[in-house]
């Protein structure tokens, strides 16, 4: 880092502004302090990635990459570590939560941004934000005690499985998607909105034909980030999914996900089993990186268009 060398104690010149030595020192200190904060965050991600990769990469040797990625059975007692049922489980639950949660969240955002009076907004917005603050074990407990019996009635099973987990996750991803969608709607230039109303369009026509298309990429971004949240959620899923590492057999059948299997197995895993669990962590990491990259690409697309 090239710092201007100083001699004497008089005022120093930095850019166009004159500042005292004390001010200069403070500025430099703060700049470096914030740089340090950023480095810590980046280093944390890098460390976690290096650590999981170091512990997990040997899945390519045992059980072998193909057996690991395409194996149809996960059973530690039999020494089989195929992640396909877990991937399918994660996809099923995530898809279910998006189908239920995304419309709910986008509707909430449209309401907050376009329809609600300031008073109404001051009630609804904190309520939505509070959803993000509820600990996931509380969601899980709620799902276990309240939703599971209802799901059991509906599906004829025991209520553990895709349906219950999807409903819980749908509620959990609402704050993520709603907040970001509201931001996206808010950043649509007011002129577009006014032009639509000036043409005699109703509120609904304006929302449906003008605002949602204009904020489309922002809304897709929001949904992808919500998806990331659903894929990574663990505690609530373990409590209601039933944790059976089998392929999707219907909404009411028990199922396991990448994250839930790590939690169930980690206390006793050794050897290949432990390596395979770190392998699951690598897969989760890659999915998460993929989603972030997708969001970045979409944002760039949006900027180019604007």
């Amino acid at each position, binding site marked *: 880092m090239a710092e201007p060398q100083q001699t004497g104690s008089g005022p120093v010149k930095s850019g166009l502004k004159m500042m005292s030595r004390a001010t200069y020192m403070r500025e430099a200190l703060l700049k470096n302090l914030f740089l340090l904060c950023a480095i810590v965050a980046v280093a944390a991600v890098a460390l976690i990635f290096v650590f999981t990769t170091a512990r997990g990469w040997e899945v390519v040797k045992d059980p072998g990459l193909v057996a690991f990625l395409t194996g149809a*059975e996960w*059973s*530690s*007692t039999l020494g089989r570590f195929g992640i396909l049922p877990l991937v399918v489980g994660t996809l099923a639950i995530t898809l279910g939560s998006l189908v239920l949660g995304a419309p709910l969240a986008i509707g909430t955002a449209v309401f907050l941004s376009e329809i609600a009076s300031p008073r109404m907004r001051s009630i609804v917005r904190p309520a939505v934000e509070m959803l993000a603050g509820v600990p996931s074990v509380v969601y899980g407990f709620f799902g276990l005690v309240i939703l599971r*019996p209802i799901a*059991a009635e509906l599906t*004829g*099973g*025991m*209520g*553990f499985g895709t349906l219950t987990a999807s409903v819980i996750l749908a509620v959990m991803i609402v704050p993520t998607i709603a907040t970001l969608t509201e931001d996206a709607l808010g950043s649509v230039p007011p002129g577009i909105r006014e032009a639509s109303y000036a043409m005699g369009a109703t509120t609904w026509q304006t929302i449906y034909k003008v605002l949602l298309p204009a904020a489309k990429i922002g809304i897709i971004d929001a949904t992808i980030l919500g998806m990331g949240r659903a894929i990574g959620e663990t505690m609530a899923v*373990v409590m209601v999914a*039933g*944790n*059976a*590492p*089998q392929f999707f*057999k219907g909404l009411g*059948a*028990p199922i*396991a996900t990448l994250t839930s299997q790590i939690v*169930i*197995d980690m*206390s*006793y895993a*050794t050897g290949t089993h432990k390596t395979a669990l770190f392998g699951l962590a690598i897969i989760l990491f890659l999915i998460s990186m993929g989603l972030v990259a997708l969001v970045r690409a979409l944002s760039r697309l949006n900027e180019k268009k604007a």
Partner: protein
Amino acid sequence: MATLVLALTLTGCSAGGERREVIVTGSTTLLPISEVSGEMYTESHDGISILVSGMGSSAGIESVTKGSSDIGTSSRELKDAELELGLEDTPVAYDAIAVIVHPDNPVRELSTFEVRSIFAGVITNWSEVGGPDLPIGLVNRDEASGTREAFSKIIMDDARFDRGAVVLPGTGQVRSVIADVEGAIGYISLGFVTDDVKAVAIDGVEPSEATVVSGDYPVQRVLHFFTKDDLSDIARDYIEYVLSPDVQDTIVRDAGFIPITAKEAIGG
């Protein structure tokens, strides 16, 4: 979790000095014995703490082997691979594994073969074993569970568990789900059976202390404390306390288990 935090704090404090604690990790089945006896022992021995946590038998064996705990509790025998770890075995109690159903379920008795077929997913409706026309809801334990291991060994033989069974990571959770779902069936330690669930007779024998001691009830096992040979004096003294009649006749029996001395008494 609180115990864990406590364990970390205490380990930090006593570093360098003489260790005044015993860390007991493992089977959730054994929790009532090790927790209550640990509390009693702490009360009568000033300045010593017994830190108990339940993470499954396999985790207990793993942790005592690695030296992160003094005593690994287990509700199953050692597997072949674990026999070479040089662990010392102290049996502390007998336990029966009860096959439990919802209290309203009219089925009172199942044969070993029927139980095996149910858990293998071959029998899927209660009407096939003399019950109502109701689908069977299978509840299994996670693969870390010593109860699952023991159940699998005694009942399942070579048959495999149905992969579609709900997997729950704790005895208490199995019980609460079975108490709640009419068609459900699961298995838990006899010590945990309450009025919320009903234990069925296996091959005509009800699970009880008498039938376990006589050997008639088939699904029974021994509960173990596993230790390494460099055991601290405090831990050794605590184990002796657990084996004393004080604990065996009160805590062990109150928890629904059968004292390790019971079979010797009748020469079994």
